[in-house]
């Protein structure tokens, strides 16, 4: 019996959805086996995880608020990355761009937070963070266009350069360094949440909805429209699909690449500004790995803006829920969520194979 792998043209949506669902379920089953092995009731654990422990919890609103805080940067970053990916520009520099955005947003908040009106400071934070992150991303874009420098490796390096700039700021006490508290002898980031913070909208008695949530949804809708309905978005799709065709249609490919990379990176900067303006303080772990996770989210969602929000929400449930569940099951900490996430992704990638290819039995001639 001989088998032969052939590319598959088209599978109906429901079959694809089913394949992915099967992958996720299989991953959860594997997770359950591990849980059983260490003596944890998998059903209860998953229940805790997926409800994030909010059922019957008096301070559930706090969980929701924290959840949204985690969700926002990830969702915006993923959307931003999807812009570049759509053009087949492998921007894996989300971390670095996020960090650069955070530093500049933090700088504005500390420098002008006391003197300017809060709303103006916040707007400035967003604008400057977008500019700085955008330019930081543009470096790799420029090198790619000009010299053909591999953007995957370049943005990877730039992530770490940015990271150590952040460490430098966070660990160096000096007169110029307005990021650190003057009073403390050890380097501690200044907390400016009292002076500068994004406003919240009170819903119900206790739940406070961060305005950034609404902004993020608006951004999502704008990017959705941008990609689907604008000329610029159209150009991005054509270049991603076939650069040869784009040239033939008279598009200025290099310029479009630079524009899109800038947009992608500056949106990540905006995500950073939201994060900094919500947290009210920098930290060396300010990114929460959204630059990495965002790549996975964008890819899993197949660069579909709506799906990105859903996938990001689910991954956040996994991440946030696991910290909550860890409170009940001390032996299962957030590392289990990382493992589970890995298993899910591997199986989804495998499922993807069966969506793109089919295996046929080779027929024999007479």
């Amino acid at each position, binding site marked *: 019996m*001989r088998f*032969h792998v052939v590319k598959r*043209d*088209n599978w109906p949506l429901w079959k694809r959805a089913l394949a992915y669902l099967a992958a996720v379920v299989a991953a959860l089953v594997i997770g359950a086996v591990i849980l059983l092995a260490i003596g944890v009731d998998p059903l209860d654990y998953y229940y805790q995880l997926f409800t994030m422990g909010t059922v019957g919890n008096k301070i559930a609103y706090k969980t929701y608020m924290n959840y949204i805080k985690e969700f926002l940067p990830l969702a915006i970053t993923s959307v931003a990355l999807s812009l570049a990916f759509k053009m087949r520009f492998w921007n894996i520099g989300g971390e670095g761009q996020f960090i650069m955005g955070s530093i500049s947003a933090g700088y504005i908040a500390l420098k002008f937070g006391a003197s300017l009106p809060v709303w103006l400071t916040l707007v400035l934070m967003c604008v400057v963070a977008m500019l700085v992150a955008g330019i930081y991303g543009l470096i790799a874009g420029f090198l790619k266009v000009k010299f053909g420098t591999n953007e995957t490796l370049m943005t990877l390096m730039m992530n770490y350069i940015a990271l150590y700039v952040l460490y430098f700021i966070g660990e160096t006490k000096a007169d110029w360094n307005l990021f650190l508290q003057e009073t403390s002898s050890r380097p501690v980031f200044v907390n400016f949440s009292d002076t500068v913070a994004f406003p919240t909208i009170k819903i119900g008695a206790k739940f406070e909805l961060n305005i950034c949530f609404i902004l993020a949804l608006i951004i999502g809708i704008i990017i959705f429209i941008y990609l689907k*309905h*604008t*000329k*610029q*978005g*159209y150009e991005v*799709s*054509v270049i991603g*699909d*076939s650069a*040869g*065709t*784009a*040239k*033939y*249609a*008279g*598009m200025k490919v290099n310029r479009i690449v630079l524009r899109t990379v800038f947009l992608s990176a500056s949106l990540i900067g905006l995500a950073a500004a939201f994060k900094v303006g919500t947290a009210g303080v920098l930290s060396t772990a300010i990114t929460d790995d959204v630059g990495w996770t965002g790549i996975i989210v964008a890819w899993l969602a197949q660069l579909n803006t709506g799906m990105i929000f859903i996938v990001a929400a689910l991954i956040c449930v996994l991440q946030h829920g696991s910290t909550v569940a860890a409170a009940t099951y001390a032996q299962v900490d957030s590392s289990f969520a990382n493992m589970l996430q890995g298993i899910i992704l591997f199986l989804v990638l495998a499922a993807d194979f069966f969506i793109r290819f089919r295996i046929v039995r*080779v*027929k*024999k*001639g*007479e």
Partner: protein
Amino acid sequence: MAEQYAIEMRGITKTFGSTVANKNVDLAVKNGEILALLGENGSGKTTLMNMLSGIYKPDSGSIFVDGKEVTIDSPEDAKRLGIGMVHQHFKLVDVFSAADNIWMGKEKPGFALSKKRYKEIDEITKKFGFELDPEKKVYNMAVSEKQTLEIIKVLYYGAKIIILDEPTAVLTVQEIERLFGVLRRMKEEGHAIIIITHKLNEVMDISDRVAIMRKGEYITTVNTAETSEQELTEWMVGRKVDLNIDRPVVETTRPLLEVRDLTINNDEGATAIDNVSFYIRGGEILGVAGIAGCGQKELCEAIAGLRPIVSGQMIHKGDNIVGLTPKAILEKGISMSFIPEDRLGMGLAPSMSIIDNMLLKKYRDSKGPFVDRKTGREDAERVIKELEVVTPSAETPVRRLSGGNVQKVLLGREIKAGPNVIVTAYPVRGLDINSSYTIYDILNKQKTEGVGILFVGEDLDVMLALCDKIMVLCHGKVMGVVHAHKTNKEELGLMMTGTLDLSEKYADKPAGFARDTLFEDGNKKEEQE
């Protein structure tokens, strides 16, 4: 039946998606024989051979080596069975030396790489009668050297059955002679050789038998000694068919596009179009005939502004368009629709919908930041209706359409843009009869409206019936421009294969030199100013 074949293929069928590349093909070669595999481009020769070399697997049919049925699942299997193929597109590692390219596939190379390998390869090279520095890196090699390396490679692996896919296309006359010498010697030593070529004189020169394929189907195999170039040409292009295609008589206008002394290089840096001149008037269809790979693609790309030219001029309505951007050329009303072999390479964005592909050249025209999909949809629906495109909807990605429908979408869009010059290459490739006629009607309609059309085609019957004039290219050179109603397939076939050169016939009146072009005037004006 006692006759033992070195290799025999029976009833081979191979499809790619909805395209049938080979349909129930039979082929057999004996030891000590050279078989020429003849056929036009797209007739499935290379696909068939790739099933012997293990690149593709047949959907059905069987292969026999020395009378025993075999399965070839990989190039490894093919090599083990003693089948070696010299591919048309070199399969070489650029950064390796010649010796290493050969050494990497050696059966028992020993664990350590020693410097001796250069000497061994050098000796073998000389033994086969070739000249090649074994330490030379492939990226420093000329095209012919790469070809030589490929041949040495296969010979070195000791293949009993050797397949050569258009090996002579890039070789000089002397090199061809040397190659043929080697092939004859291999033949005497009992090897079975299959050679794909378009050059009939070579077929007559080297082969013992000729197998002919047309449009994926096996036609026949004849003994070379018992046939003639005329007969082979007829088999290759098919018997004269009365196609009943209209050729409306239209009053032609001044030349819209004129090309003078144009020379273009291909991707490898070799000359693809060699000092070519011609013109297209409004209201006429100029056919371009030629064996595939004779510079048609490069010519089309140059006219569209996608490929830099080496020298020459391209004049559109009196303006030189050399060096203009693709966008500027589009805006002048020159439309290009090139159907490459994979159909989706140029001119279409495969993952995008028909609607989006309709907008490719005109999305900028609408006002505001948004893409005007309403017009796109109208265009798409009109094209779908008028050209009878079979598609679930206008939103369907072009990639999912069958080849013929892809072409209709492409051509439909080009015509919608209202060009004054249409450059179209292989617009009916893979189309069924009815769709083909739809396309001819479209082109004729454009012609009556005064559009000048450059029609790069394959099917000579179609070209004879549809075109007003036919320019024949052979390896980048013009073999002549003939009036379609004054010529016949045999003549065209002989010109295509380089046997007949009519370019001298009109030496006093150079082919394609337009006396009434506006360009001369334009130049004078500039000089006066």
